């Protein structure tokens, strides 16, 4: 098909992962943090796919599916929490204020 090297894909995965992490660490808005996590998950997925391509094995895509379901579940719960917080009187979604594990 092409001369695409899985090693380059891995490097991109690393860049994406680092970028996602930057977002998680730097942003205070929970929604944006959630998006950054999606980026990190996708970076991991990319790494799996690249590895699968490298070894000509379908397991890479199997793992991608697992990540996909994980991301789906995570997004569902995370977004539910965000909505709940918003409704509970914290419209700013500031991650730094919710540090008491209650209310």
């Amino acid at each position, binding site marked *: 098909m092409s001369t695409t090297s899985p090693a380059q894909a891995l490097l991109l995965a690393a860049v994406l992962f680092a970028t996602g*992490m930057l977002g998680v*660490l730097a942003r205070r808005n929970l929604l944006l943090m959630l998006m950054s996590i999606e980026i990190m998950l996708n970076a991991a997925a990319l790494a799996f796919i690249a590895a699968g391509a490298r070894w000509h094995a379908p397991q890479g895509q199997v793992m991608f599916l697992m990540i996909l379901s994980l991301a789906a579940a995570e997004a569902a719960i995370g977004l539910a929490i965000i909505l709940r917080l918003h409704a509970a009187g914290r419209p700013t979604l500031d991650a730094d204020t*919710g540090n*008491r594990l209650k209310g």
Partner: protein
Amino acid sequence: MDALFLKLIVAFPLLAAAILLLSAGRMPARATCVIGTGSVGLSALMAARVATHATSPASLHVPLWSWMRVEGFSTRIAFTLDPLSLVMMLVVTFVGFLILLYACGYMRDDPDIARFFGYMTLFVAAMLVLVFSSDLLSLYIGWEGVGICSYLLIGFWHIDSANVAAARKAFIVTRIGDAAMLCGLLLLATRAGTLEIAPLLAAPPASATAAFLLLGGAVAKSAQAPLQTWLPDAMAGPTPVSALIHAATMVTAGVYLIARLHPLFAAVPAAMATVALIGLVTLLLAAGSALVQTDIKRILAYSTMSQIGYMFLALGAGAWQAAIFHLVTHAVFKALLFMAAGAVILRVHHRQDIYQMGGLARAMPGVFAAFLAGAAALAGLPLLTAGFYSKEMILQGAWHANPLLWAGALLGALATAVYIFRCIFIVFFGPRHTDPTGRTGATMALPLLCLGILALVGGWIDMPDAIAPVHLLSRLLSPLFGAPTAEGPSWLLWTGSLVPLAGVGLAWLLWRPRIRAFTPPEDAVARLARTGWGFDTLYDTLVVRPFVALGRLNQTDICDRLSDATAATARAGGRMLGRMQSGQVRRYAGWIAAGTIAALCLGAWP
């Protein structure tokens, strides 16, 4: 048979001590006196029996039991009787018996009399162990034993904390010497593998260190400079204690030790010179102090130091017989002086200041006579007194060793006569400042009488050839010490006789009755002399106080602060880590990232 007697001589006082101390005061006072005095009396009788049968030069050896036996060292508890221990035994038992008899009267009304006699008999037993031991380590048992008895007896009236402090001081100062002596023993034991005296002396290891270390023990025990400061304070004890322990027996243990180990010292000229020098310095310093004291017992205490200084001088000069001779006569006349002083003190309501007495000769002629006999012997008035002969012998020995020593000793003799007759003139003559009450009982008078006679005639056992060729003691001791030194020119004898007389005359000029009593100028020197030349202050400032203050400063233990610091670090670390648990998601995420990076780094660069 003699062996059994020897054991019994020690066993009787020991047994009496055990009975008296265990009875815990439940025994009537009379029984206490009988047991205490009787046991020592029995010992004295047996000592006399042993002495009359065993005057042969051969020594008697009584092994008792093996004390310690380990690899490379063994020591036994064993007694030996040779001329030296024979003399000491007689002094200890006889003088001890007379003093205990005196104490029966002196301590009659004390509720704690059982404890007193218990300690006293224990002391006699310990002193006998010291004297009899044929092994330096078992000698050390007696050596420390007399020390602890001295502590217990000085602090006998323990309600007064001054007495307790004096007792503690006495024990600790002597203990410093004891530690030095112990080091000497360790050295000897390491060199020779044994502490048995006979083999040790047969081949004396010429070790200057050992000699000096042992000398340290002797100096402290015999209250010689520079460890003499405890003796004047030790007068806090009851007077019989002062007479027995701090005049007649224990304080002379140092002299005994050096005489016993004389080959060891003779092999080290420096040690001999030091002994002589210490003797001379102490003799002059103490005599100077005695000149200005006002407390009758302190006068006698300084006098004891001074007289033991004579003995050290003799030892240092190599005149061993002279030292032992003076030890014997001094035991007699100083015990006599103390007991007479005690009788005076009892009669004048426990006052001890000589200026508060005065004119007592008429009120108590018997006591006066006894004191006078003792004083004459102490001053060494010629011909008639015991002290004259022994001091004469020392002067001869000193002349042979070094004329300078002789001159110093002569100066000391002058001072001795002056201070003791100053005491007599002030106490027994002149206007009366206090009314004596009561009378001196028989139990107290009898010992005074016995010792008074001995103080006068006791010297006749050994006389210079110029007077009479009697050499009982010298001959007895000569197997041990060799022949006594030849006598010097006869003008030595004349000088030695005239100087004490001159001293008495000087005292008469200064303090004779019916003139305004001479008060020495109250200058710095006098103050210094009265306080014992400032040794106390010196030690207090240099050693005791810094030591105690530093200890106080460190009362809570600096090492403990170290462990506290560890605890504080842990606690601070915990608090710091606790702050990290902020509950903030982003911080946690940051730490997770950091951890991941660290793990990666570990994985990437193994």
